[in-house]
């Protein structure tokens, strides 16, 4: 009887899994893209964080060191400018790699003010609302997703964007105290990368890298990692010239929809934190977050 059941079960499962199977679609390409991103995140997370380590770069990469004078540029209602300062930076460029003509490192800016008033715990929705406010002005956003991960120690938000600056996706990941640290610019996909300290101790890493294989090659990824001087929070902002949903991608020459300067400003936004203004958090609860089927653009 038991043998009969086992044999029957095998037949049932074989017939149940056969037929009605949808095509794989973009699965393979999506895996490769997501794999590169996951590998990159893992490398950043595990990197040592010592800027001096840039001196021991892998073969095939050249490094340059210089000084960047800059002027803080506060907006209305923002904190006072840090003033004109000079700070050392380290730039790493992959040998033989071509930096696309549209790419510029950001002119460093003084950060916004933090939240004031009663505080509440940051939610995926409030994080998503702030991401849209930071990077998506004038663009349409779709497939908005927000998640609290790793037992609430990481907040991740991703959104597909399309607008005058192009189309693609933007992502934000915020880590709890002691989380991610800027590492050396040694990722295999890096075209050019630079690291520096802002006055006050904030550490920033800007990176342009390329991902994809075959027809999907030369998909660009802009990435900024900011770690606050008190190590309270680290934030990674990423923009890429393809939709994370995989249903649209830009041609090789297309820039991501968000520029590096916007990413840097967004990542430095002091409103990011494990608590936010409670009114904003409550307001953000009305934001609609989509899943894989949430194709609505708003």
């Amino acid at each position, binding site marked *: 009887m038991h043998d009969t059941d086992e044999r029957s079960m095998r037949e049932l*499962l074989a017939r149940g899994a056969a037929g009605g199977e949808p095509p794989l679609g973009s699965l393979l390409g999506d895996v490769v893209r997501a*794999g*590169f991103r*996951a590998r990159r995140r893992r490398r950043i997370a595990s990197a040592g964080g010592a800027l001096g380590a840039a001196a021991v770069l892998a073969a095939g990469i050249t490094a340059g060191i210089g000084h960047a004078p800059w002027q803080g540029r506060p907006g209305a209602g923002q904190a006072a400018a840090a003033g004109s300062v000079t700070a050392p930076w380290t730039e790493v460029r992959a040998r033989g790699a071509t930096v696309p003509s549209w790419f510029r490192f950001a002119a460093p800016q003084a950060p916004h003010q933090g939240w004031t008033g009663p505080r509440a715990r940051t939610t995926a929705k409030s994080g998503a609302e702030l991401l849209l406010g930071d990077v998506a002005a004038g663009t349409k956003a779709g497939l908005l997703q927000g998640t609290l991960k790793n037992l609430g120690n990481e907040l991740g938000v991703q959104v597909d964007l399309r607008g005058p600056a192009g189309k693609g996706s933007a992502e934000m990941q915020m880590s709890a105290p002691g989380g991610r640290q800027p590492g050396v610019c040694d990722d295999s996909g890096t075209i050019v990368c630079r690291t520096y300290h802002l006055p006050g101790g904030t550490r920033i890493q800007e990176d342009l890298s390329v991902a994809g294989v075959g027809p999907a090659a030369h998909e660009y990824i802009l990435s900024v990692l900011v770690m606050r001087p008190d190590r309270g929070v680290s934030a990674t902002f990423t923009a890429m010239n393809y939709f994370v949903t995989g249903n649209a991608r830009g041609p090789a020459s297309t820039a991501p929809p968000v520029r590096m300067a916007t990413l840097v400003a967004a990542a430095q936004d002091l409103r990011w934190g494990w608590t936010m203004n409670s009114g904003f958090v409550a307001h953000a609860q009305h934001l609609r977050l989509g899943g894989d089927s949430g194709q609505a653009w708003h």
Partner: protein
Amino acid sequence: MDCPEGFMEFMSAAAPRLRRTAYLLCGDWHAAQDLTQATLVRVFVGWHRIRDPGSAHAYAQRTLVNSYLAGRRRKSSTEVVSGELADQPGPPGTAGLRLVLMQALGVLTPRARAVVVLRYWEDRSINQVAALLGCSAGNVTSQSARALAKLRAHLGDSWLELCSAD
């Protein structure tokens, strides 16, 4: 940035089978697609650690099952499990068979379902399933026997109809 050597070939060959396994575990193709993608991304990230290409499929399968079980644990607090089906199954055709089969598999616990799929779909030995799930061979034997009994009891006369249906 190039894809790790051999990964594309592995993925092209393994993805359809992995997704069918995921379908039998999850019960719908959308969830199966997500689970397969998450699995293959993990394999991609850990590809450099796989020294023997022959072990890649076993690694992927273990990752798939673990991801499925982890996902079910996370969802367990929000889903209400019911032993009652809203409708009785009609005569089982090909599509009907799938529906009835998925509903029947749905009465099993995620771990028992994984045992059934690995034993009778993947055709893994008891020892292999035990190694994949990190439990004893005796545990796999008892779980598969209980699962089959539960499925037979749940399906009742439909069991014979399903088995004899073309």
